[in-house]
Protein backbone atom coordinates (compact mmCIF):
# COMPACT_ATOMS: atom_id res chain seq x y z
CA UNK A 1 0.00 0.00 0.00
CA UNK A 2 1.65 3.27 -1.04
CA UNK A 3 2.15 5.65 1.85
CA UNK A 4 1.69 9.37 1.84
CA UNK A 5 3.76 12.21 3.20
CA UNK A 6 1.14 14.75 2.26
CA UNK A 7 -0.90 14.95 5.45
CA UNK A 8 -1.47 17.14 8.47
CA UNK A 9 -1.08 15.88 12.02
CA UNK A 10 -4.79 16.40 12.59
CA UNK A 11 -5.51 14.20 9.60
CA UNK A 12 -3.20 11.56 10.98
CA UNK A 13 -5.00 11.79 14.33
CA UNK A 14 -8.23 10.78 12.57
CA UNK A 15 -6.49 8.11 10.51
CA UNK A 16 -4.79 6.63 13.59
CA UNK A 17 -8.09 6.64 15.46
CA UNK A 18 -9.79 4.80 12.63
CA UNK A 19 -7.10 2.14 12.81
CA UNK A 20 -7.73 1.70 16.52
CA UNK A 21 -11.43 1.02 16.18
CA UNK A 22 -12.51 -2.40 17.37
CA UNK A 23 -13.34 -4.77 14.52
CA UNK A 24 -16.94 -5.04 15.59
CA UNK A 25 -19.27 -3.81 18.29
CA UNK A 26 -21.28 -0.67 18.90
CA UNK A 27 -19.55 2.71 18.69
CA UNK A 28 -21.14 5.89 20.02
CA UNK A 29 -19.68 8.82 18.10
CA UNK A 30 -19.37 12.07 20.03
CA UNK A 31 -19.39 15.56 18.59
CA UNK A 32 -16.71 16.69 16.19
CA UNK A 33 -13.82 14.58 14.90
CA UNK A 34 -15.22 11.30 16.27
CA UNK A 35 -17.77 11.36 13.46
CA UNK A 36 -15.30 11.52 10.60
CA UNK A 37 -12.89 9.13 12.31
CA UNK A 38 -15.70 6.64 12.84
CA UNK A 39 -16.88 6.85 9.26
CA UNK A 40 -13.32 6.44 7.99
CA UNK A 41 -12.95 3.30 10.06
CA UNK A 42 -16.27 1.92 8.87
CA UNK A 43 -15.44 2.44 5.20
CA UNK A 44 -11.80 1.40 5.32
CA UNK A 45 -11.05 -0.98 8.17
CA UNK A 46 -13.97 -2.21 10.22
CA UNK A 47 -17.06 -2.65 8.04
CA UNK A 48 -18.80 -4.52 10.86
CA UNK A 49 -18.53 -1.69 13.38
CA UNK A 50 -21.93 -0.28 14.31
CA UNK A 51 -22.10 3.52 14.22
CA UNK A 52 -24.51 5.35 16.51
CA UNK A 53 -25.00 8.91 17.69
CA UNK A 54 -26.78 10.36 20.65
CA UNK A 55 -29.56 12.14 18.78
CA UNK A 56 -31.15 8.79 17.96
CA UNK A 57 -29.06 7.21 15.21
CA UNK A 58 -28.54 3.44 15.32
CA UNK A 59 -26.29 1.48 12.99
CA UNK A 60 -25.73 3.99 10.24
CA UNK A 61 -24.32 2.36 7.14
CA UNK A 62 -22.75 4.83 4.73
CA UNK A 63 -23.04 4.07 1.04
CA UNK A 64 -19.67 3.49 -0.60
CA UNK A 65 -20.11 6.65 -2.63
CA UNK A 66 -21.37 8.68 0.33
CA UNK A 67 -20.88 12.35 -0.57
CA UNK A 68 -19.61 13.36 2.86
CA UNK A 69 -19.06 12.23 6.40
CA UNK A 70 -22.08 13.49 8.32
CA UNK A 71 -21.57 17.11 9.28
CA UNK A 72 -22.18 16.81 12.99
CA UNK A 73 -23.93 14.06 14.91
CA UNK A 74 -27.32 15.24 13.68
CA UNK A 75 -26.74 15.54 9.92
CA UNK A 76 -29.90 14.51 8.02
CA UNK A 77 -27.74 12.09 6.10
CA UNK A 78 -27.88 9.82 9.15
CA UNK A 79 -31.57 9.23 8.38
CA UNK A 80 -30.63 7.49 5.15
CA UNK A 81 -28.97 4.17 5.79
CA UNK A 82 -29.58 3.80 9.50
CA UNK A 83 -31.18 0.63 10.80
CA UNK A 84 -33.15 2.71 13.28
CA UNK A 85 -33.68 6.37 14.02
CA UNK A 86 -35.45 7.54 17.14
CA UNK A 87 -34.47 9.77 20.00
CA UNK A 88 -31.98 10.61 22.68
CA UNK A 89 -33.61 8.66 25.49
CA UNK A 90 -33.21 5.58 23.32
CA UNK A 91 -29.62 6.43 22.35
CA UNK A 92 -28.11 7.80 25.57
CA UNK A 93 -30.52 5.86 27.80
CA UNK A 94 -31.48 2.46 26.41
CA UNK A 95 -28.38 1.98 24.30
CA UNK A 96 -25.60 3.69 26.25
CA UNK A 97 -26.74 3.53 29.88
CA UNK A 98 -28.47 0.21 29.19
CA UNK A 99 -25.07 -1.27 28.46
CA UNK A 100 -25.23 -1.85 24.71
CA UNK A 101 -22.31 0.35 23.71
CA UNK A 102 -18.81 -1.08 23.28
CA UNK A 103 -16.80 2.04 22.67
CA UNK A 104 -17.31 5.78 22.81
CA UNK A 105 -15.35 8.26 20.69
CA UNK A 106 -14.89 11.67 22.25
CA UNK A 107 -13.18 14.99 21.88
CA UNK A 108 -12.49 17.53 24.62
CA UNK A 109 -10.68 20.74 25.41
CA UNK A 110 -8.48 19.11 28.03
CA UNK A 111 -7.37 15.66 29.07
CA UNK A 112 -5.32 14.73 32.12
CA UNK A 113 -3.00 11.99 33.23
CA UNK A 114 -5.90 9.76 34.28
CA UNK A 115 -7.80 10.30 31.05
CA UNK A 116 -10.40 12.61 32.53
CA UNK A 117 -11.84 15.07 30.03
CA UNK A 118 -12.97 18.67 30.35
CA UNK A 119 -15.55 20.23 28.08
CA UNK A 120 -16.92 22.97 30.30
CA UNK A 121 -14.59 25.66 31.60
CA UNK A 122 -10.98 26.73 31.60
CA UNK A 123 -10.13 27.94 35.10
CA UNK A 124 -12.19 27.29 38.21
CA UNK A 125 -15.95 26.79 37.89
CA UNK A 126 -16.48 29.45 40.53
CA UNK A 127 -14.03 31.77 38.81
CA UNK A 128 -14.25 31.03 35.13
CA UNK A 129 -11.30 32.00 33.01
CA UNK A 130 -12.84 30.89 29.75
CA UNK A 131 -16.22 29.34 29.26
CA UNK A 132 -16.58 26.48 26.78
CA UNK A 133 -19.75 25.23 25.11
CA UNK A 134 -20.45 22.50 27.63
CA UNK A 135 -20.45 18.75 27.78
CA UNK A 136 -23.37 17.78 25.56
CA UNK A 137 -23.35 13.98 25.70
CA UNK A 138 -19.65 13.78 26.55
CA UNK A 139 -20.21 13.16 30.26
CA UNK A 140 -22.50 10.16 29.85
CA UNK A 141 -20.36 8.56 27.20
CA UNK A 142 -17.32 8.90 29.48
CA UNK A 143 -19.27 7.63 32.49
CA UNK A 144 -21.10 4.79 30.80
CA UNK A 145 -19.22 3.45 27.77
CA UNK A 146 -17.07 0.45 28.74
CA UNK A 147 -14.16 1.99 26.86
CA UNK A 148 -13.33 5.34 25.37
CA UNK A 149 -11.12 6.60 22.60
CA UNK A 150 -10.48 10.35 22.79
CA UNK A 151 -9.13 12.55 20.03
CA UNK A 152 -7.19 15.44 21.54
CA UNK A 153 -4.67 17.65 19.75
CA UNK A 154 -1.30 17.33 21.46
CA UNK A 155 -0.88 20.75 23.03
CA UNK A 156 0.59 21.69 26.38
CA UNK A 157 -2.55 23.61 27.32
CA UNK A 158 -4.73 20.57 26.56
CA UNK A 159 -2.65 17.78 28.13
CA UNK A 160 -2.77 18.96 31.72
CA UNK A 161 -1.84 17.24 34.94
CA UNK A 162 -5.35 17.71 36.25
CA UNK A 163 -8.27 18.93 34.14
CA UNK A 164 -9.70 22.24 35.31
CA UNK A 165 -13.09 20.60 35.56
CA UNK A 166 -13.60 16.87 35.23
CA UNK A 167 -16.76 16.76 33.16
CA UNK A 168 -16.13 13.26 31.87
CA UNK A 169 -14.45 10.78 34.17
CA UNK A 170 -11.63 8.63 32.94
CA UNK A 171 -9.88 6.87 35.79
CA UNK A 172 -10.57 9.92 37.99
CA UNK A 173 -7.60 9.88 40.39
CA UNK A 174 -6.29 6.38 40.08
CA UNK A 175 -7.06 2.69 40.54
CA UNK A 176 -10.44 1.81 41.97
CA UNK A 177 -11.77 5.35 41.74
CA UNK A 178 -14.34 4.59 39.03
CA UNK A 179 -16.02 1.75 40.86
CA UNK A 180 -15.87 3.68 44.11
CA UNK A 181 -17.73 6.53 42.42
CA UNK A 182 -20.41 4.11 41.25
CA UNK A 183 -19.16 3.75 37.69
CA UNK A 184 -18.28 0.51 35.97
CA UNK A 185 -14.64 -0.17 35.23
CA UNK A 186 -13.36 0.82 31.86
CA UNK A 187 -10.72 -0.01 29.36
CA UNK A 188 -8.45 -0.42 27.61
CA UNK A 189 -8.92 3.25 26.82
CA UNK A 190 -6.94 5.31 24.37
CA UNK A 191 -6.10 8.90 23.63
CA UNK A 192 -5.12 9.61 20.06
CA UNK A 193 -3.39 12.95 19.76
CA UNK A 194 -1.79 14.82 16.89
CA UNK A 195 1.51 13.22 17.83
CA UNK A 196 0.87 9.71 18.99
CA UNK A 197 -1.33 7.05 20.49
CA UNK A 198 -1.54 6.85 24.25
CA UNK A 199 -2.96 4.03 26.33
CA UNK A 200 -3.41 3.68 30.05
CA UNK A 201 -1.68 1.52 32.61
CA UNK A 202 -4.82 -0.38 33.54
CA UNK A 203 -4.25 -4.13 33.57
CA UNK A 204 -7.86 -4.80 34.56
CA UNK A 205 -10.09 -1.90 33.69
CA UNK A 206 -8.93 0.62 36.26
CA UNK A 207 -8.93 -1.49 39.41
CA UNK A 208 -5.17 -1.89 39.56
CA UNK A 209 -2.05 -0.42 37.94
CA UNK A 210 -1.27 3.28 38.03
CA UNK A 211 -4.11 4.10 35.61
CA UNK A 212 -1.83 6.74 34.10
CA UNK A 213 -1.69 7.69 30.47
CA UNK A 214 1.16 5.92 28.70
CA UNK A 215 2.70 6.77 25.35
CA UNK A 216 2.39 3.64 23.20
CA UNK A 217 3.45 4.95 19.81
CA UNK A 218 4.39 8.15 18.08
CA UNK A 219 3.57 9.53 14.68
CA UNK A 220 6.26 9.08 11.97
CA UNK A 221 9.37 11.10 12.63
CA UNK A 222 8.33 12.22 16.11
CA UNK A 223 10.25 11.33 19.25
CA UNK A 224 8.68 10.71 22.65
CA UNK A 225 10.43 13.88 23.82
CA UNK A 226 8.41 15.90 21.34
CA UNK A 227 5.22 14.49 22.80
CA UNK A 228 6.46 15.07 26.34
CA UNK A 229 7.13 18.70 25.47
CA UNK A 230 3.41 19.10 24.75
CA UNK A 231 2.30 17.35 27.91
CA UNK A 232 1.87 19.00 31.30
CA UNK A 233 3.11 16.14 33.44
CA UNK A 234 5.94 13.59 33.26
CA UNK A 235 4.49 11.18 30.75
CA UNK A 236 4.80 7.44 31.17
CA UNK A 237 6.49 5.99 28.10
CA UNK A 238 5.88 2.39 27.12
CA UNK A 239 9.00 0.22 26.97
CA UNK A 240 8.19 -0.84 23.48
CA UNK A 241 7.19 2.55 22.13
CA UNK A 242 7.21 2.58 18.35
CA UNK A 243 6.24 4.64 15.40
CA UNK A 244 2.87 4.08 13.79
CA UNK A 245 2.75 3.23 10.11
CA UNK A 246 2.56 6.36 7.97
CA UNK A 247 -0.81 7.01 6.38
CA UNK A 248 -1.54 5.34 3.10
CA UNK A 249 -2.60 7.35 0.11
CA UNK A 250 -5.98 5.62 0.38
CA UNK A 251 -6.44 6.76 3.95
CA UNK A 252 -5.58 10.35 3.16
CA UNK A 253 -7.64 10.41 -0.02
CA UNK A 254 -10.73 8.95 1.61
CA UNK A 255 -10.44 11.21 4.64
CA UNK A 256 -10.33 14.25 2.38
CA UNK A 257 -13.18 13.00 0.25
CA UNK A 258 -15.25 12.63 3.42
CA UNK A 259 -14.61 16.26 4.33
CA UNK A 260 -15.49 18.15 1.15
CA UNK A 261 -16.31 21.33 3.05
CA UNK A 262 -13.24 21.24 5.30
CA UNK A 263 -15.68 21.21 8.17
CA UNK A 264 -13.57 18.81 10.18
CA UNK A 265 -10.05 19.42 9.04
CA UNK A 266 -8.76 22.74 7.92
CA UNK A 267 -5.35 22.58 6.21
CA UNK A 268 -4.11 25.48 8.34
CA UNK A 269 -4.54 23.65 11.67
CA UNK A 270 -1.80 21.35 13.02
Amino acid at each position, binding site marked *: MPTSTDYTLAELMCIATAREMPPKGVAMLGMGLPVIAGVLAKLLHTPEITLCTEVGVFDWKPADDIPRAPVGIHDLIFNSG*SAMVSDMVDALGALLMGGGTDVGLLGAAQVDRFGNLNTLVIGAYKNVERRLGGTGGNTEIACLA*PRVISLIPQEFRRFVDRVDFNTSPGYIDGPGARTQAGLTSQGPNLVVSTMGVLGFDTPDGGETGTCEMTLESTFPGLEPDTVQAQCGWPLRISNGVKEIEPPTTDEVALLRRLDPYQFYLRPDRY
Partner: protein
Amino acid sequence: MAVAGSSSRLPRVPERKLLSAPEAINRFVSDGDTVYAGYTSVCMGLTYEIVRQRKRHLEIVGGSVGIQATVLALSGCIDRVRAGYIAGALRPGIISEMMDSGELKYEDYSNQAIALMLMAGALGIPFIPTRSFLGSDYLDPANEGHPGGYLGNNKWAQLDSPFDGQKTLLLPALTPDVTILPAQRADEFGNVQLWGHMGDAKWAFWAGKKVVVAVEEIVPNEAIRNDPGRTVVPGFMVSAVVHMPYSAHPSSMAGYYDTDYAFQRQAFDGISRSSEAFAAFADEWIYGCPDRETYVRHYVETFGQDALQQIRADTGPDAGQGIRYTYSNELRFP
Protein backbone atom coordinates in the same frame (compact mmCIF):
# COMPACT_ATOMS: atom_id res chain seq x y z
CA MET B 1 -3.61 -2.41 21.14
CA ALA B 2 -6.88 -2.10 19.28
CA VAL B 3 -9.93 -1.97 21.50
CA ALA B 4 -11.43 -5.40 20.97
CA GLY B 5 -14.03 -7.73 22.36
CA SER B 6 -17.14 -6.75 24.20
CA SER B 7 -18.01 -6.36 27.84
CA SER B 8 -21.65 -5.67 27.13
CA ARG B 9 -24.40 -7.62 28.85
CA LEU B 10 -25.78 -8.61 25.46
CA PRO B 11 -25.03 -11.90 23.81
CA ARG B 12 -24.01 -10.64 20.40
CA VAL B 13 -24.53 -13.05 17.54
CA PRO B 14 -23.83 -10.88 14.55
CA GLU B 15 -22.93 -13.84 12.41
CA ARG B 16 -26.32 -15.33 11.88
CA LYS B 17 -29.57 -14.26 13.51
CA LEU B 18 -32.06 -16.14 11.39
CA LEU B 19 -32.65 -19.33 13.35
CA SER B 20 -35.29 -22.03 13.47
CA ALA B 21 -37.62 -21.94 16.47
CA PRO B 22 -36.01 -25.02 18.09
CA GLU B 23 -32.54 -23.53 17.68
CA ALA B 24 -33.55 -20.12 19.00
CA ILE B 25 -35.33 -21.44 22.09
CA ASN B 26 -32.66 -24.04 22.79
CA ARG B 27 -29.94 -21.45 22.58
CA PHE B 28 -31.55 -18.49 24.31
CA VAL B 29 -33.98 -19.83 26.90
CA SER B 30 -32.45 -21.52 29.93
CA ASP B 31 -34.09 -23.15 32.91
CA GLY B 32 -34.71 -20.55 35.61
CA ASP B 33 -34.83 -17.61 33.21
CA THR B 34 -37.11 -14.64 33.68
CA VAL B 35 -39.11 -14.53 30.45
CA TYR B 36 -41.10 -11.65 29.01
CA ALA B 37 -43.45 -13.16 26.44
CA GLY B 38 -45.77 -10.42 25.30
CA TYR B 39 -48.85 -8.56 26.32
CA THR B 40 -51.22 -7.32 23.61
CA SER B 41 -49.67 -9.59 21.04
CA VAL B 42 -48.11 -12.82 22.22
CA CYS B 43 -45.85 -15.24 20.46
CA MET B 44 -47.64 -18.53 20.85
CA GLY B 45 -45.42 -20.23 18.30
CA LEU B 46 -42.30 -19.73 20.38
CA THR B 47 -44.22 -20.36 23.60
CA TYR B 48 -45.13 -23.82 22.33
CA GLU B 49 -41.50 -24.45 21.49
CA ILE B 50 -40.59 -23.64 25.11
CA VAL B 51 -43.17 -26.22 26.18
CA ARG B 52 -41.83 -28.81 23.75
CA GLN B 53 -38.30 -28.26 25.05
CA ARG B 54 -39.62 -28.73 28.60
CA LYS B 55 -37.93 -25.67 30.07
CA ARG B 56 -38.39 -25.49 33.81
CA HIS B 57 -38.49 -22.98 36.70
CA LEU B 58 -39.07 -20.02 34.42
CA GLU B 59 -40.51 -16.76 35.73
CA ILE B 60 -42.95 -15.02 33.42
CA VAL B 61 -43.28 -11.23 33.49
CA GLY B 62 -45.42 -8.75 31.61
CA GLY B 63 -48.14 -6.14 31.99
CA SER B 64 -51.06 -8.47 31.44
CA VAL B 65 -50.12 -12.08 30.85
CA GLY B 66 -52.65 -14.13 28.96
CA ILE B 67 -52.79 -17.42 27.13
CA GLN B 68 -49.01 -17.70 26.92
CA ALA B 69 -48.75 -17.71 30.71
CA THR B 70 -51.65 -20.12 31.02
CA VAL B 71 -50.00 -22.61 28.68
CA LEU B 72 -46.61 -22.26 30.34
CA ALA B 73 -48.10 -22.74 33.80
CA LEU B 74 -50.16 -25.76 32.82
CA SER B 75 -47.07 -27.25 31.16
CA GLY B 76 -45.05 -26.91 34.32
CA CYS B 77 -42.57 -24.50 32.70
CA ILE B 78 -43.08 -21.54 35.04
CA ASP B 79 -43.20 -21.32 38.78
CA ARG B 80 -43.30 -17.54 39.22
CA VAL B 81 -45.30 -14.73 37.63
CA ARG B 82 -44.76 -10.98 37.95
CA ALA B 83 -47.58 -9.11 36.22
CA GLY B 84 -50.41 -6.63 36.40
CA TYR B 85 -53.04 -9.07 35.25
CA ILE B 86 -53.07 -12.86 35.06
CA ALA B 87 -55.82 -13.86 32.69
CA GLY B 88 -55.57 -17.51 33.69
CA ALA B 89 -56.51 -16.61 37.27
CA LEU B 90 -59.70 -14.87 36.23
CA ARG B 91 -61.83 -17.97 36.57
CA PRO B 92 -61.40 -20.75 39.13
CA GLY B 93 -59.33 -23.64 37.82
CA ILE B 94 -55.86 -25.11 37.83
CA ILE B 95 -54.05 -21.75 37.64
CA SER B 96 -55.87 -20.42 40.70
CA GLU B 97 -55.18 -23.67 42.50
CA MET B 98 -51.48 -23.45 41.66
CA MET B 99 -51.43 -19.92 43.05
CA ASP B 100 -53.23 -21.00 46.21
CA SER B 101 -51.01 -24.00 46.77
CA GLY B 102 -47.76 -22.13 46.32
CA GLU B 103 -46.87 -24.09 43.20
CA LEU B 104 -47.08 -20.84 41.25
CA LYS B 105 -45.65 -17.89 43.15
CA TYR B 106 -46.82 -14.41 42.17
CA GLU B 107 -46.05 -10.77 42.67
CA ASP B 108 -48.89 -8.46 41.74
CA TYR B 109 -48.01 -5.20 40.04
CA SER B 110 -49.97 -3.22 37.47
CA ASN B 111 -49.68 -2.66 33.75
CA GLN B 112 -48.14 0.77 34.22
CA ALA B 113 -45.69 -0.56 36.79
CA ILE B 114 -44.42 -3.36 34.56
CA ALA B 115 -44.08 -0.98 31.60
CA LEU B 116 -42.09 1.51 33.70
CA MET B 117 -39.98 -1.26 35.22
CA LEU B 118 -39.11 -2.58 31.77
CA MET B 119 -38.24 0.94 30.67
CA ALA B 120 -36.01 1.40 33.72
CA GLY B 121 -34.36 -1.93 32.93
CA ALA B 122 -33.79 -0.86 29.36
CA LEU B 123 -32.38 2.51 30.44
CA GLY B 124 -29.95 0.90 32.86
CA ILE B 125 -31.27 2.77 35.88
CA PRO B 126 -31.93 0.75 39.03
CA PHE B 127 -35.42 2.11 39.69
CA ILE B 128 -38.07 4.52 38.48
CA PRO B 129 -40.72 6.36 40.47
CA THR B 130 -44.47 6.21 39.94
CA ARG B 131 -47.38 8.02 41.54
CA SER B 132 -49.63 5.02 41.08
CA PHE B 133 -50.43 2.64 43.97
CA LEU B 134 -50.46 5.46 46.54
CA GLY B 135 -53.44 5.07 48.84
CA SER B 136 -54.06 1.48 47.76
CA ASP B 137 -53.91 -1.69 49.82
CA TYR B 138 -50.90 -2.84 47.80
CA LEU B 139 -48.86 -0.62 50.11
CA ASP B 140 -50.66 -1.66 53.29
CA PRO B 141 -47.98 -3.13 55.60
CA ALA B 142 -50.54 -5.75 56.60
CA ASN B 143 -50.20 -7.26 53.14
CA GLU B 144 -46.41 -7.63 53.29
CA GLY B 145 -45.17 -11.17 53.32
CA HIS B 146 -48.23 -12.66 51.64
CA PRO B 147 -47.76 -16.37 50.91
CA GLY B 148 -47.55 -15.98 47.11
CA GLY B 149 -44.70 -13.49 47.21
CA TYR B 150 -41.06 -14.02 46.40
CA LEU B 151 -39.53 -10.55 46.05
CA GLY B 152 -39.80 -9.29 49.62
CA ASN B 153 -38.33 -5.83 50.03
CA ASN B 154 -37.16 -5.85 46.45
CA LYS B 155 -40.73 -5.50 45.20
CA TRP B 156 -40.80 -1.72 45.62
CA ALA B 157 -39.94 1.07 48.04
CA GLN B 158 -41.56 4.31 49.06
CA LEU B 159 -39.73 7.64 48.83
CA ASP B 160 -40.76 11.26 49.13
CA SER B 161 -39.24 13.36 46.37
CA PRO B 162 -36.17 15.23 47.63
CA PHE B 163 -37.23 18.14 45.41
CA ASP B 164 -40.88 18.75 46.24
CA GLY B 165 -41.81 16.20 48.88
CA GLN B 166 -44.22 14.43 46.50
CA LYS B 167 -44.84 10.90 47.72
CA THR B 168 -43.67 8.32 45.21
CA LEU B 169 -43.26 4.60 44.91
CA LEU B 170 -39.91 3.45 43.54
CA LEU B 171 -40.23 0.49 41.19
CA PRO B 172 -37.13 -1.65 40.64
CA ALA B 173 -35.80 -2.07 37.12
CA LEU B 174 -36.87 -5.23 35.32
CA THR B 175 -34.45 -6.85 32.88
CA PRO B 176 -35.89 -10.13 31.64
CA ASP B 177 -33.29 -12.78 30.89
CA VAL B 178 -35.08 -13.23 27.61
CA THR B 179 -37.77 -11.30 25.74
CA ILE B 180 -39.87 -13.30 23.31
CA LEU B 181 -42.12 -11.35 20.98
CA PRO B 182 -43.83 -11.45 17.63
CA ALA B 183 -43.54 -8.58 15.16
CA GLN B 184 -44.55 -7.77 11.63
CA ARG B 185 -41.14 -7.91 10.05
CA ALA B 186 -37.38 -8.01 10.47
CA ASP B 187 -34.33 -8.47 8.33
CA GLU B 188 -31.82 -11.26 8.73
CA PHE B 189 -29.69 -9.01 10.93
CA GLY B 190 -32.44 -8.80 13.51
CA ASN B 191 -33.62 -5.25 12.89
CA VAL B 192 -37.25 -5.44 13.97
CA GLN B 193 -40.07 -3.27 12.69
CA LEU B 194 -43.28 -3.20 14.66
CA TRP B 195 -46.24 -0.88 14.22
CA GLY B 196 -49.61 -0.27 15.75
CA HIS B 197 -50.36 0.17 19.46
CA MET B 198 -47.78 -1.98 21.20
CA GLY B 199 -48.36 -2.04 24.96
CA ASP B 200 -45.06 -2.65 26.71
CA ALA B 201 -43.36 -4.38 23.75
CA LYS B 202 -40.89 -1.63 22.87
CA TRP B 203 -39.32 -1.48 26.30
CA ALA B 204 -39.38 -5.27 26.63
CA PHE B 205 -37.35 -5.48 23.43
CA TRP B 206 -34.79 -3.08 24.87
CA ALA B 207 -34.82 -4.51 28.41
CA GLY B 208 -34.27 -8.15 27.51
CA LYS B 209 -30.76 -9.49 28.06
CA LYS B 210 -31.56 -11.87 25.22
CA VAL B 211 -34.20 -11.16 22.59
CA VAL B 212 -35.93 -13.68 20.34
CA VAL B 213 -38.41 -12.35 17.82
CA ALA B 214 -40.73 -14.22 15.48
CA VAL B 215 -41.83 -12.30 12.41
CA GLU B 216 -44.45 -12.62 9.73
CA GLU B 217 -42.00 -11.57 7.05
CA ILE B 218 -38.27 -11.40 6.53
CA VAL B 219 -37.51 -8.32 4.47
CA PRO B 220 -34.28 -7.15 2.85
CA ASN B 221 -32.01 -4.95 4.90
CA GLU B 222 -32.79 -2.07 2.51
CA ALA B 223 -36.48 -2.16 3.39
CA ILE B 224 -35.52 -1.52 7.01
CA ARG B 225 -33.01 1.20 6.21
CA ASN B 226 -35.47 2.95 3.92
CA ASP B 227 -37.83 3.52 6.83
CA PRO B 228 -35.70 3.43 9.98
CA GLY B 229 -38.35 5.21 12.03
CA ARG B 230 -40.43 2.01 12.06
CA THR B 231 -37.63 0.04 13.72
CA VAL B 232 -38.43 -0.70 17.34
CA VAL B 233 -35.10 -2.28 18.21
CA PRO B 234 -31.91 -2.49 16.16
CA GLY B 235 -30.52 -5.86 15.17
CA PHE B 236 -27.44 -5.60 17.33
CA MET B 237 -29.66 -5.81 20.42
CA VAL B 238 -31.46 -8.91 19.13
CA SER B 239 -30.29 -12.48 19.65
CA ALA B 240 -32.36 -14.39 17.12
CA VAL B 241 -34.99 -13.90 14.45
CA VAL B 242 -37.40 -16.69 13.57
CA HIS B 243 -39.43 -16.51 10.39
CA MET B 244 -42.79 -17.77 11.54
CA PRO B 245 -46.03 -16.61 9.91
CA TYR B 246 -49.03 -16.72 12.26
CA SER B 247 -46.68 -16.88 15.24
CA ALA B 248 -49.10 -14.83 17.35
CA HIS B 249 -52.25 -16.81 16.53
CA PRO B 250 -54.80 -16.85 18.14
CA SER B 251 -53.72 -13.35 19.26
CA SER B 252 -53.36 -10.66 16.64
CA MET B 253 -50.76 -8.95 14.46
CA ALA B 254 -51.72 -5.59 12.95
CA GLY B 255 -51.80 -5.72 9.17
CA TYR B 256 -51.75 -9.53 9.12
CA TYR B 257 -54.45 -11.18 11.22
CA ASP B 258 -56.89 -10.33 13.94
CA THR B 259 -57.65 -12.16 17.17
CA ASP B 260 -59.29 -15.55 16.63
CA TYR B 261 -61.94 -15.55 19.34
CA ALA B 262 -63.59 -18.69 18.11
CA PHE B 263 -60.36 -20.64 18.45
CA GLN B 264 -59.61 -19.05 21.82
CA ARG B 265 -62.95 -20.19 23.16
CA GLN B 266 -63.08 -23.60 21.55
CA ALA B 267 -59.50 -24.63 22.10
CA PHE B 268 -58.39 -22.59 25.11
CA ASP B 269 -61.24 -21.81 27.41
CA GLY B 270 -61.42 -25.27 28.90
CA ILE B 271 -57.74 -26.01 29.32
CA SER B 272 -57.49 -24.69 32.88
CA ARG B 273 -60.34 -26.83 34.11
CA SER B 274 -58.57 -30.18 34.24
CA SER B 275 -55.18 -31.61 33.48
CA GLU B 276 -56.85 -33.98 31.05
CA ALA B 277 -58.33 -31.08 29.12
CA PHE B 278 -54.94 -29.42 28.88
CA ALA B 279 -53.22 -32.66 27.89
CA ALA B 280 -55.68 -33.12 25.06
CA PHE B 281 -55.09 -29.57 23.89
CA ALA B 282 -51.32 -29.91 24.14
CA ASP B 283 -51.29 -33.25 22.34
CA GLU B 284 -53.20 -31.76 19.46
CA TRP B 285 -51.80 -28.23 19.11
CA ILE B 286 -48.37 -28.23 20.80
CA TYR B 287 -46.87 -31.71 20.50
CA GLY B 288 -48.98 -32.69 17.51
CA CYS B 289 -47.82 -29.65 15.57
CA PRO B 290 -44.04 -29.52 16.10
CA ASP B 291 -43.64 -26.43 13.92
CA ARG B 292 -45.80 -23.51 12.91
CA GLU B 293 -46.35 -24.69 9.37
CA THR B 294 -47.83 -27.92 10.67
CA TYR B 295 -49.91 -25.90 13.11
CA VAL B 296 -51.36 -23.73 10.36
CA ARG B 297 -51.99 -26.76 8.19
CA HIS B 298 -53.75 -28.53 11.04
CA TYR B 299 -55.77 -25.40 11.71
CA VAL B 300 -56.91 -25.27 8.10
CA GLU B 301 -57.71 -28.99 8.10
CA THR B 302 -59.75 -28.58 11.26
CA PHE B 303 -61.55 -25.29 10.68
CA GLY B 304 -61.24 -24.79 6.94
CA GLN B 305 -59.47 -22.23 4.81
CA ASP B 306 -62.39 -19.88 5.43
CA ALA B 307 -61.45 -19.55 9.08
CA LEU B 308 -57.97 -18.38 8.17
CA GLN B 309 -59.46 -16.05 5.62
CA GLN B 310 -61.84 -14.59 8.16
CA ILE B 311 -59.18 -13.50 10.63
CA ARG B 312 -57.13 -11.89 7.88
CA ALA B 313 -56.60 -8.22 8.66
CA ASP B 314 -57.78 -6.82 5.38
CA THR B 315 -59.62 -3.66 6.38
CA GLY B 316 -58.08 -0.24 6.75
CA PRO B 317 -56.15 2.30 4.70
CA ASP B 318 -52.61 2.08 3.42
CA ALA B 319 -50.15 4.00 5.53
CA GLY B 320 -47.10 6.09 5.05
CA GLN B 321 -47.96 8.33 2.13
CA GLY B 322 -45.56 11.17 1.56
CA ILE B 323 -42.92 10.20 4.09
CA ARG B 324 -39.39 10.97 2.98
CA TYR B 325 -36.21 11.02 5.06
CA THR B 326 -34.26 12.81 2.37
CA TYR B 327 -31.19 14.97 2.84
CA SER B 328 -29.28 17.31 0.58
CA ASN B 329 -26.58 15.57 -1.43
CA GLU B 330 -24.50 18.70 -1.75
CA LEU B 331 -24.61 20.98 1.25
CA ARG B 332 -24.51 24.71 1.10
CA PHE B 333 -21.18 25.77 2.59
CA PRO B 334 -19.51 29.15 2.18
